[in-house]
């Protein structure tokens, strides 16, 4: 019996679905994570190559176009892959969040394109269920595409203002309802035979909504938004998978859809806010309210004094924030930490769930500097240890270590879990200047009796601290 092309396609999709799930499963530990992505990558390659076998099964009507179509597919695959490979290889680790947003938007766009072809196919008979899912996938995929592009532009510094105006939510809501109404019309009135203009209007409405919805969201909230759009693209892919009767798309899309939703909820929880609060409220706009008197004063300290105290401490915990990465100081920091470890000091890194520009971003930045992952601890795991620490060092972090989140009900960050650095015997805060955090809240930690401020560029401060230790050893 001859092996049918359909069988090879189906078998490769089955293998892909299995390897995607198995690969994601292997990502649950840093030890096996890399083999997980390699397996999933292999599955993707095989499934893509197998898809050329659709060549043998195209409809009668598509036969005259087949040669061109295959050539177009090869060119599109080559261009997309080469561009993405090139951009992915050279992107800096600090710029990772916007790159993930960009790739994610592209996936949403691809799902929307599949839906567009389906909805423009007015000569075919359409059933209601696939039509509903095609429209839903088109809507979600389009929002994910344009929204991710805005998120990318914002994180990349190409758009630097948050765009707000009165009654913004009303305008956005009206646009969404209008787009949804068009979608319902396409399904239930036109039964998939809507005029091209209407279908185009539907897509433009969805794309525009993605833009308008993302514009007012501030940079600090972008991680949640990117994660949400990741889930959106997953759902869109799953729905289009149903339309195409493609189980690989259905399974992979739905796995990512639910995984992304969970991740979004976890992140929103780490910021002590709901997802709708992130999307529909203008956070930071109310930060200038009275926050009560802060007692104490800012006490500056020299980097060398801080370094020497750490050198003779038993236990040092470091709480890095995005400011560390902005100053590109993570390599120097680890060099300093190695000197401390060699001197017998116990050093741990404490990572707040939203440190960096996406969840877990700080771990990636530290890993890039060579910090082994067994020195890095999550908030829940390390918060009790701060009271045993001789020195806690805060580098480029602010809101995530602000005790006001525990005590001051009037504060916009009240209730957010924070790193309890103030419980350490001595706290050093390495900071560029006297500015505030993303939330615009003054930080009473800086004024506490056991806190000293080390002002300066994080990288230069680390160099000075390394020198202080080395001169100590040398002399």
């Amino acid at each position, binding site marked *: 019996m001859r092996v049918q092309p359909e069988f090879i396609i189906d078998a490769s999709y089955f293998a892909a679905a299995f390897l995607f799930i198995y690969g994601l499963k292997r990502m*649950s530990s840093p030890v096996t994570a890399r083999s997980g992505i390699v397996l999933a990558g292999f599955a993707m390659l095989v499934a893509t190559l197998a898809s050329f076998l659709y060549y043998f099964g*195209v409809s009668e009507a598509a036969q005259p176009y087949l040669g061109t179509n295959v050539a177009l597919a090869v060119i599109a695959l080559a261009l997309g892959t080469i561009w993405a490979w090139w951009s992915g290889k050279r992107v800096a680790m600090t710029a990772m969040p916007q790159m993930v947003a960009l*790739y994610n938007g592209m*996936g949403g766009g691809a799902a929307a394109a599949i839906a567009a072809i389906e909805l423009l196919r007015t000569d075919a008979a359409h059933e209601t269920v696939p039509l509903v899912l095609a429209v839903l996938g088109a809507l979600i995929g389009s929002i994910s595409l344009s929204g991710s592009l805005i998120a990318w532009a914002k994180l990349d510094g190409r758009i630097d203002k948050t765009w707000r105006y009165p009654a913004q939510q009303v305008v956005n809501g009206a646009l969404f309802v209008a787009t949804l109404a068009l979608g319902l019309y396409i399904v239930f009135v036109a039964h998939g035979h809507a005029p091209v203009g209407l279908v185009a209007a539907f897509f433009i409405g969805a794309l525009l909504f993605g833009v308008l919805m993302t514009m007012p969201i501030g940079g600090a909230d972008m991680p949640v938004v990117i994660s949400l759009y990741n889930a959106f693209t997953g759902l869109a892919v799953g729905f289009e998978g149903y339309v195409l*009767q*493609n189980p690989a798309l259905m399974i992979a899309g739905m796995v990512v859809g639910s995984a992304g939703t969970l991740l979004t909820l976890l992140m929103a929880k780490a910021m002590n806010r709901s997802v709708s609060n992130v999307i529909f409220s203008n956070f930071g706009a109310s930060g200038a309210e009275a926050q009560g008197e802060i007692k104490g004063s800012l006490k500056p300290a020299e980097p060398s004094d801080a370094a020497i105290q750490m050198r003779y401490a038993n236990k040092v915990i470091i709480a890095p924030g995005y400011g560390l990465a902005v100053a590109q100081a993570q390599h120097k920091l680890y060099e300093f930490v190695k000197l401390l470890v060699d001197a017998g000091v116990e050093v741990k890194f404490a990572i707040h769930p939203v440190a960096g520009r996406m969840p877990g971003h700080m*771990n990636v930045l530290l890993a890039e500097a060579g910090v082994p992952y067994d020195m890095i601890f999550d908030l829940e795991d390390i918060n009790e240890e701060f009271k045993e620490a001789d020195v806690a060092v805060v580098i480029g972090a602010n809101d995530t270590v602000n005790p006001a989140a525990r005590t001051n009900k009037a504060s916009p960050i009240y209730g957010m879990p924070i790193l309890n650095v103030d419980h350490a015997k001595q706290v050093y805060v390495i900071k560029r200047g006297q500015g505030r955090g993303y939330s615009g809240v003054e930080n009473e930690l800086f004024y506490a009796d056991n806190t000293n401020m080390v002002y300066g560029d994080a990288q230069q401060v680390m160099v000075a601290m390394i020198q202080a230790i080395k001169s100590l050893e040398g002399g």
Partner: protein
Amino acid sequence: MDLTTTLTGFVALYIFMLAAFTGYEIISRVPSILHTPLMSGSNFVHGIVVVGAMYALLNATSLVEQIIGFVGVLLGAGNAAGGYVVTERMLEMFKPSKAGEGGK
């Protein structure tokens, strides 16, 4: 084209339901240290959409469909390849203490 499987009605619902639970269960076990690679990894996984876009493009019967299909495959390929490269780059950096010392 003649498909060997029909995934409609409840069969499709079962697939969606089981896949959703699978995604939820897998992710809830991932430590937060790996959340960034995980997000980009799941981002890579939905790059499988490129396969659907290829099906749509190969079955295109007009210039408009060819253009949209071309864009779809282009975007899907970018999603898949980009997601893979950045995820692999990030995961490659995660090393335990021993390996970190040995490398120096």
